[in-house]
């Protein structure tokens, strides 16, 4: 089985994400009329394969597998699925999967691009528990932000349908918008806490000589993202009525995070020496 590498397991996981995406299209078309377990099971299977892939990679280097863009992306997706599987246990929240699957599949295909996972050189200079904590908490934070964006997307869809008296608003089994709103803000809050821990752990890591820290694009970008999410929560607290704008903010922030994540990684000398 040695020819069957962690990348093969991840490929299988992405294939199942693809199946889940196709299945989700049918759920969308049916209007979420029946509490659906199939998609949850599909994502559970994909998550298992995904976990195997990550563990295999992690054990082979004895550290948290977040050393290049491929690993960071797969970790991010893994965190998103883990968050979904936890939240999906609550009644009527399994439909989050139908909103999450297309993102998982698209980003998963992107992660499989060979250039993102170059052959590994010597053991990275900075390894150990703090690095793993830094990387893992930040990726879990991205997972929470991602699922928050998915819940916000559900909120916006359902709210629009209710406002414009669409029949599918009542025909669907989606959760009430108030609950979706609560879930969104809680996920963003959890994400922000994890992000804070991760950034703090990153700040405590030994810095390589002759590398700028405060001007490193990834550091600047991370602090910017941290401020964005903090501002979203603050605005939400000050103006509780603007739930729609908050939901849009969460969706846009995560899209921005996804679109800029790889670019800042490539530009960062700290993260991409």
């Amino acid at each position: 089985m040695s020819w069957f590498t962690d990348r093969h397991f991840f490929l299988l996981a992405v294939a199942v994400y693809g199946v889940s995406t196709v299945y989700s299209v049918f759920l969308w078309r049916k209007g979420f009329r029946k509490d659906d377990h199939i998609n949850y099971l599909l994502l559970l299977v994909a998550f298992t394969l995904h976990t195997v892939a990550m563990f295999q990679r992690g054990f082979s280097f004895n550290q948290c597998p977040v050393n290049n863009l491929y690993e960071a992306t797969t970790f991010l997706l893994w965190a998103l699925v883990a968050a979904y599987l936890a939240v999906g246990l609550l009644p009527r929240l399994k439909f989050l999967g139908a909103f999450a699957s297309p993102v998982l599949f698209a980003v998963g295909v992107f992660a499989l691009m060979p250039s993102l996972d170059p052959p590994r050189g010597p053991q990275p200079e900075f390894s150990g528990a703090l690095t793993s904590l830094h990387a893992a908490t930040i990726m879990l934070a991205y997972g929470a932000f991602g699922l928050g964006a998915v819940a916000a997307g559900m909120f916006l869809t359902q709210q629009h349908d209710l406002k414009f008296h669409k029949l599918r608003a009542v025909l669907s089994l989606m959760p009430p918008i108030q609950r979706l709103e609560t879930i969104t803000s809680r996920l963003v809050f959890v994400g922000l806490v994890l992000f804070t821990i991760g950034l703090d752990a990153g700040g405590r890591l030994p810095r390589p000589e002759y590398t700028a820290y405060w001007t490193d694009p990834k550091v600047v970008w991370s602090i910017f993202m941290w401020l964005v999410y903090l501002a979203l929560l603050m605005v939400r607290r000050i103006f509780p009525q603007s739930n729609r704008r908050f939901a849009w903010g969460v969706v846009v922030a995560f899209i921005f995070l996804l679109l800029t994540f790889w670019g800042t990684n490539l530009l960062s000398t700290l993260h991409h020496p």
Partner: protein
Amino acid sequence: MNVVVIGLSHHSSPVELRERFAFAEAKIPEALKLLRESGIAAEAVILSTCNRVEIYAATALEPVRAFAELKKFLVTVHAYDMALGDELYTLVEPQSLHHLFKVACGMDSMVLGETEILGQLKKAYDLALQHQHTGARLNKAFQRAFNVAKHIRTETNIQRGSVSVASVAVELAEKIFSSLTNREVLVIGAGETSEKTARALLSRGARSIIVVNRSHDRAMALANELGGRAVPFDDWGAEFEKIDIAISSTSAPHHILDRARLEPLMKARQQRPLLLIDIAVPRDIDPEVNFLENVYLYNIDDLQAIADGYLKQRKEEIARCEQIIAEKVKGLLQSKHENRGWKIEDGTSGSPSSILYPPPSL
């Protein structure tokens, strides 16, 4: 021995006739006893609701004879002396079983897919079972009917959604609020539909009802009935700070709530979500308010459109349900033929005795 059905329902007869043939619940055991003692049926269940009166019987008699005796029984015990035509329907196997399953699933009900009939059918069966008027055949047929109803409820959309305006309003509220517990409801104008809607919301956990009406006495009366409180008509705006749902059904010729009036009220209630149900014609609430953040306005046509949508969905499911029922009836009849498990040795296969019915008190 066959399972047969004789009865009349909203499909075949008007309420004036149905009420003549209705059985009081307390009298049913006596009627069942009479049916069995007379030799017409070995087992029997009587279902008597506002929409149907039916006798399900397992009988060894030839169908023609059995129906003649059952009809005579019905006419005699209810002292009905007029001619009966198509109002009374009679069914033999497999149609009788098919009918039983359809009734259990709410497919023969006035409101397609309603679930109340299943409870009534269970109650009718339990009553017969308690008094030992059922046996292997009816037990198996009824239990299978209850299973089919459960299967259909979970596998199809025939029972999904609400087809009345009041239930649709409740369903909408459940799509907006995490829970209806502790929600405050304001009823503006004490009309029948708003009363029904308020009751439905209360049954789902709404905390209290505030009633305002031009006639304060009427408001007080309704508030007392619903366990809420009445407020003078001109003060209803002050209540907006506390409420989550408002149902309006006044006879005002103009809008009593418009955007200009609601905007400051929404600020006062810190923009919490507000569901407005406007069932008045002409409308009480200006449609413009729906453009305000966190305000969800539905008028009578919107609610009716949702109810109609549900009904359409239910109708689309009929073919699927019919197919499931046909398969289940086939399965039941197959098991009957295979193991003859429905055999009842009760000696009732002979001719019915001369039936001496009691006076028409049943």
